[in-house]
């Protein structure tokens, strides 16, 4: 039980270096992956990334190497790189830790990517509430520019690449890639339909590699250790490590880095030192993630395991909820969040989430009818199937999974007689 299940890769410098000092970073082997990268060809890097099996850490889990290859092959006068640091998912704080503790590995990952895909301009989009990461990334960018890791003719290779910081104003939907890019362009943050995908028509209509902070932070390590070594970490279907933001009713909350394949119960019991009472459910991935009952904690932190249960791993938040909490109360809180954050573009998300709340309240008040349950399920399905972006598609997840695993809670909200009191 007390065996250490952590595996420190992205967090290996945490606490050991002064994050504000580029010298510290260099002294601990920093920017050597970049030197190694620019000594090979962009194609080699893309191949290496594909071989590593790294999948996007923002939640959608798209293979990073494949994305890079698409941008690399897209023809355009200019290509962009965007680092999505708009970490707005409740329960997630991994990107904040990365930016606050080791900002240069993110920059290094971006420069390697820029070299591989041929991008000349990069943006780091940080949510407005992250005052400290904004300050630290800004300082790190300046230091990297001074040392010649950003700017013209990087390391004498002829590579021109620079990074600009862009901060949001606190809108959750900015984490959605199209809304984020529209926001950088100066437009209101609203999602749009796909395809076209960012790899062909992204920022300013140009090919764009947009990835999460954690994805970029992985890149120097993959180049450093080689895809073969990297892919030894984790499981057959999920390579590398995962940063886990552990919160809720566990004794020890915080950020942990674990290899893929650890069991959820291990995260709760080993890293979190368990709960005081008993576990009611664990929400994985953040507010948009599924709520799992205790008997499913045998599931592994593995893309395949989750997909087989019709769920997604999300960005790796683990929120532990004990029996002192009311399930419907938590679901209501989650939905209230999405109602507030919906951008308002598409019908199902704009209008639908409000009615999820209206219907849920009937169950909370014990005034629901049987047909409300059917309507609720139909509405969940419509929102999932027809919302224009991930925000809407994932908004009913907590509701849907609690309906699946805790049907008795909802059944208790249905009136015994058939007519509703007026």
């Amino acid at each position, binding site marked *: 039980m007390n065996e250490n299940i952590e595996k420190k890769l992205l967090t290996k410098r945490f606490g050991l270096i002064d994050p504000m000092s580029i010298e510290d970073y260099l002294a601990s082997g920093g920017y050597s992956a970049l030197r190694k990268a620019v000594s090979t060809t962009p194609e080699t890097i893309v191949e290496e990334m594909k071989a590593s099996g790294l999948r996007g850490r923002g939640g959608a889990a798209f293979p990073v190497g494949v994305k890079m290859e698409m941008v690399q092959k897209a023809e355009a006068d200019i290509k962009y790189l965007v680092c999505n640091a708009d970490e707005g998912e409740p329960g997630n704080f991994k990107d904040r830790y990365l930016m606050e503790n080791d900002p240069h590995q993110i920059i290094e990952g971006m420069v390697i990517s820029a070299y591989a895909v041929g991008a000349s301009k990069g943006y780091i989009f940080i949510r407005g509430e992250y005052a400290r990461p904004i300050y630290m990334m800004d300082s790190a960018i300046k230091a990297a520019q001074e040392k010649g890791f950003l700017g013209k003719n990087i390391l004498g290779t002829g590579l021109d690449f620079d990074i600009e910081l862009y901060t949001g104003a606190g809108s959750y939907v900015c984490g959605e890639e199209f809304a984020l890019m529209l926001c950088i362009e100066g437009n*209101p943050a609203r999602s749009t339909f796909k395809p076209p995908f960012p790899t062909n028509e992204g920022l300013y209509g140009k090919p764009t590699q947009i990835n999460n902070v954690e994805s970029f932070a992985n890149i120097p390590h993959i180049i450093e250790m080689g895809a073969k070594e990297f892919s030894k970490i984790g499981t057959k279907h999920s390579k590398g490590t995962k940063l886990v933001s552990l919160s809720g009713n566990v004794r020890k909350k915080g950020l942990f880095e674990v290899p893929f394949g650890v069991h959820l119960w291990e995260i709760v019991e080993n890293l979190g030192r368990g709960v005081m009472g008993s576990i009611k459910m664990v929400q994985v991935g953040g507010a948009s993630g599924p709520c799992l009952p205790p008997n499913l904690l045998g599931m592994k932190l593995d893309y395949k395991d989750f997909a087989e249960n019709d769920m997604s791993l999300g960005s790796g938040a683990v929120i532990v909820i004990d029996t002192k909490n009311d399930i419907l109360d938590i679901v209501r809180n989650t939905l209230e969040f999405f109602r507030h954050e919906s951008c308002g573009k598409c*019908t199902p998300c704009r209008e639908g989430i409000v009615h999820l709340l209206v219907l849920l309240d009937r169950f909370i008040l014990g005034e629901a009818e049987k047909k409300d349950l059917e309507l609720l399920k139909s509405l969940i399905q419509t929102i999932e*199937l027809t919302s224009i972006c991930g925000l809407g598609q994932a908004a009913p997840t907590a509701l849907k999974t609690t309906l699946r695993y805790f049907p008795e809670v909802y059944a208790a909200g249905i009136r015994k007689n058939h007519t509703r009191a007026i």
Partner: protein
Amino acid sequence: METVKIKINNKEVEVEKGTLILDAAKSIGVSIPTLCYHPDQEIKANCRVCAVEVEGMKNLQTACSTQAAEGMVIKTNSAKVREARKVNIELLLANHNMSCTTCIRNGNCELQKIAAELGIRESRFDNIMVLQDKDESSPSLVRNQNKCIKCGRCIQVCTNVQGLAILDYAGRGHTSEVKPAYGMYLNDVRCAACGQCSTVCPVAAITEKEDIERVWEAINDPDKHVVVQTAPAVRVSIGEEFGMEPGSIVTGKLVAALRALGFDAVFDTDFTADLTIMEEGHELLRRIKKGGVLPMLTSCSPGWINYIEQYYPELLPHVSTCKSPQQMFGALAKGYYPEKIGKEAEDIFSVSIMPCTAKKYEAQRSEMKHDKKHYDVDAVLTTRELARMLKQAGIAFDQLEEEEYDDPFGISTGAAVIFGATGGVMEAALRTVYEVVTGETLENINFTDVRGLEGIKEAAVDLAGQQVKVMVAHSLSKAKQVMEMIKSGKASDYAFIEIMCCPGGCIGGGGQPYGATNALRQQRIDGTYRADEALAIRKSHENPAIKKLYGEFLIEPLGEKSHHLLHTHYTNRKRSH
């Protein structure tokens, strides 16, 4: 042509690569409902009503935004699709003022139509609409937030076609709205009142301000002599309201219908369109001869006048001082006609039937009053309103026998008819100006260079050895381009520029029947030129009634009476918002 093979509802179909699922389905007779989609606009894909099932894809795909790809297997009517469509429509209805029976769009509302098609018998969701006040500040338009379904069509037409961006999304999520910046009233922002928003709105969130009741009142008042004028563009569009082919020329039926409604005299705005050509043509010649401000800009489109007064007031000296044909008619109806029939001006109630919402604004401008008391035009009805009025009166428009306009404002020429299409005023003016200047008969009177839907058109005419360059623009985004040309001196060698506020000219006006697309506008334009060719007289200065009017009353173009009745002035209405 590269093609792809796809399967829609188990039927194989081969379509050009890049074809939208929506169009591919249409090609085999499968209609997919849409709300935010508009064939002339950018894809929005926000109503999600056109969602279809594509095999191998987890979520439903919107047919309006997804291109057919090789091997796609599509289902447009599966249980999943039907339920999702229904739920999305029900969600819209739950935040919509469902007062359908008393709604101005009752019978031609796109939301209502889809709800009917989907067989929605009740909205399973509670109606949670928060009732808001209507914006009735504009004399032309009414904005009803309680009906808005946030499809964004009005935003696109206002921003992309007219270049104004008066309307946009505000707020987010469930409380997002479509409205002018800072929630201001329509009349307090720099809206041109063109009404293009009202023609693309699928519901009744923005509509013309109805004046039907005032007209009924006047008709039923035995002390009023009610005269009516019909704009050129109405005769090629109102047939659409009664199931006739777009572009059908229904002039005679229109006259008969108005008479059947009870108007005392039915006149033609085309008559004053000819008069406009006489005045405006001579004004142009005078400006050329006497070194006046050139290029001269046309003044017959009130939306365009609203635009230049609010956005480019420094260029107002370029605008012809001629009143629009509607207002010339109004001035004659109150300042010449009463004496002819032995009545007083205040006994006359003058109504105009216009393809336009900005005409409502124009009619109530303070300059447009007879003797500072009575408006020259008392009520303006759009084409759509007239159609409604005819339906109220139970008049079977398509079955009417054709009738002739009344004297003395009933005779007109082909030059006047084409006022309704972009380039028409220019062509009409050239037909007259050429003959006035050269004294010769114009051989080919068809100036085809200035016709058609291209945004900015040019032509050069040889006037007795002098090359005169002219330009034609329609829609306000194109007007803006022309204004910038003038400001930067790039238009200094042009003598005359026609500007129409609406795309396609008045036939594409904001008061025209619903459903206008570029293809349909072209049909109306074709109708317009067919009407021109069918007329015996096709040059304004050859109109015998015009000659008579000058002979017995006006004396000469730009004369004292004309100055008083037919010309106007403009106001700098620029403001910061």
